[in-house]
């Protein structure tokens, strides 16, 4: 591969277009195919492993040479780019709402969640805690996070899907504890949010604050993330706590029908997503600390994922649309809880 693939690809076009300042999208050739996967920001290394495996799998059955291009960014920003014309063939996000936005705009099939197993979520995770060595504050469950001297770090629910999961997980756990007594839930949430020391805009920023800046007693993030972080920064200094009750975090995937058709990639895109459910891919996913559905792989990695009770956004909040409207929109519950 040339070190400057973009120049190679666009150079001829640029000669034609230089005077006009216009670039042309080069249509996919029959023998050389390209697939663009729009994904969330922290999935780079994950797809760096999955893509070559899929390439091998695809090329074994077809004559084409396949190049898989990746685009990574905050999940909402990524979906916005597709709405505005980024020609991605498939999306692999960490937010159901961000795929739904595309479905509402007619770019993704209306029944996308029914088109693939497990609500079109080949892997899943939950929200868990990373605490400092020895768990000095004795954090075991969500209730412990509202204690007086506990300082929390998690990304801003306004800007980060990760943060929204954390908020909803805390709310859902409180709803069980207080048996649905709304006043008590709100009091709990107010203390919980009051314990937050820094609201970074994204998951990575929160990690940096917790690890490199030494802020806070607990970092709250996806289970997969806290495990990756612990592996990355030294398993002796941190401990992962998976609370007994937490939220089911789905990682939805979908074909962007209109784009895939335009790029002549409908079959390829579908095959790519199907592949994520294969045993081979599921093993790779489990290696990155995501929970998977394939029974053989689940058995293999059973030590890695403690049993825990996971509730769904659908059951507790009546679906994502409802949750967004009630809790996260301007003037919603989150704003009310943070108001002073």
């Amino acid at each position, binding site marked *: 591969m040339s070190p400057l693939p973009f120049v190679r690809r666009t150079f001829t076009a640029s000669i034609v277009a230089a005077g006009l300042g216009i670039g042309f999208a080069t249509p996919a050739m029959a023998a050389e195919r390209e697939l663009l996967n729009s994904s969330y920001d922290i999935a780079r290394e994950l797809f760096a492993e999955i893509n070559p495996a899929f390439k091998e799998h695809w090329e074994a059955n077809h004559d084409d040479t396949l190049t898989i291009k990746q685009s990574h960014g905050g999940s909402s920003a990524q979906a*916005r780019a597709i709405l505005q014309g980024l020609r991605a063939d498939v999306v692999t996000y960490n937010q159901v709402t961000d795929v739904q*936005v595309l479905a509402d705009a007619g770019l993704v099939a209306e029944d996308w969640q029914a088109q693939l197993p497990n609500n079109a979520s080949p892997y899943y995770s939950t929200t868990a805690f990373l605490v400092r060595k020895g768990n000095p504050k004795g954090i075991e469950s969500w209730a412990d996070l509202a204690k007086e001297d506990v300082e929390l770090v998690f990304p*801003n629910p*306004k*800007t980060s899907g990760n943060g929204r999961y954390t908020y909803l997980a805390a709310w859902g756990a409180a709803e069980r504890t207080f048996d649905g007594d709304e006043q008590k839930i709100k009091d709990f949430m107010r203390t919980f949010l009051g314990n937050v*020391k*820094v*609201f970074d805009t994204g998951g990575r920023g929160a990690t940096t604050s917790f690890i490199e800046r030494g802020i806070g007693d607990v970092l709250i993030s996806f289970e997969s993330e806290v495990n990756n972080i612990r592996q990355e920064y030294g398993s002796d200094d941190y401990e992962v706590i998976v609370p007994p009750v937490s939220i089911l975090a789905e990682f939805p995937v979908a074909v962007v029908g209109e784009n895939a058709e335009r790029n002549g990639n409908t079959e390829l895109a579908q095959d790519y997503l199907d592949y994520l459910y294969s045993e081979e891919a599921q093993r790779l996913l489990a290696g990155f600390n995501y929970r998977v559905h394939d029974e053989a792989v689940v058995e293999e990695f059973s030590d890695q994922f403690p049993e825990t009770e996971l509730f769904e956004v659908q059951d507790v909040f009546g679906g994502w649309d409802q949750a967004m409207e009630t809790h996260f929109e*301007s003037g919603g519950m989150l704003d009310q809880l*943070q108001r002073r």
Partner: protein
Amino acid sequence: MKAAAFSLPFPRARQRVLPGFGLSLGISLTFVSLVLLLPLTGLVGQLSGLSLAEYWAIISEGRVVASYVTTIGAAAVAAVINAIFGLLLAWVLVRYDFPGKRLLDALMDLPFALPTAVAGITLATLYSSSGWMGKALAPLGIEVAYTWIGIALAMAFTSIPFVVRTVQPILEDLPGEIDEAAMALGARDGVAFRRVILPHLWPALVTGTGLAFVRSLGEFGAVIFIAGNMPYETEITSLMIFVKLQEYDYVGASAIASVVLATSLILLLAINLWQGRFIRRLHGGS
């Protein structure tokens, strides 16, 4: 050339001596329209669907107003720091010779050259409690990262070249006789500077500081990593725009952006008028 039509209302024949009016007017207007103004119609288009009451509701929401206060306050502090520090640097660079002067001069442009996100990450690393600067400041009880001081610091960093580079050329052009006269009269350094030099630098200093202030109002990349982003305390207005975008609320984002844009443009227009008056005064009227 179509620009000929524009030449009618100008009485001064002197101006027509130089060539290129039509060409430069044509190119400038085309460029300004296509590159600067046309895209802004997108912003106006978003706002056109809003009633005045809806617009007001978006831009006067409590949390957004708190972000104005934070942003303007921090930008003002940054501007004051830059005015003092920038003046000092410009003075030293113009008036003195010392080893490493060229390096210091080159260093002044660094904030322009460094991507703002890199600046943000680096400043947050340096000034957090575990960073080099953070550790040094902690015993003094000064917390920079995740407070408004951090925001002001990041703003000051990204906008310092505006002050230095505006004041520097004016200082270079000041004739030496001005100093001499003042010194010959036996004035002390401080007094002479205030009475003789500062009146000449004042307009450039205000212009540079003003530009720095405007730049700080819109800064996002450098600030966001060091801000802490706590509601009502350390949220900047750019973050509010960013939040609206995350919610797919283009209209809300455009509304808040229009407030920042209008404020900045008014300030810039004021600076330009001020600058024009100053130049005219310097050259004894036009």
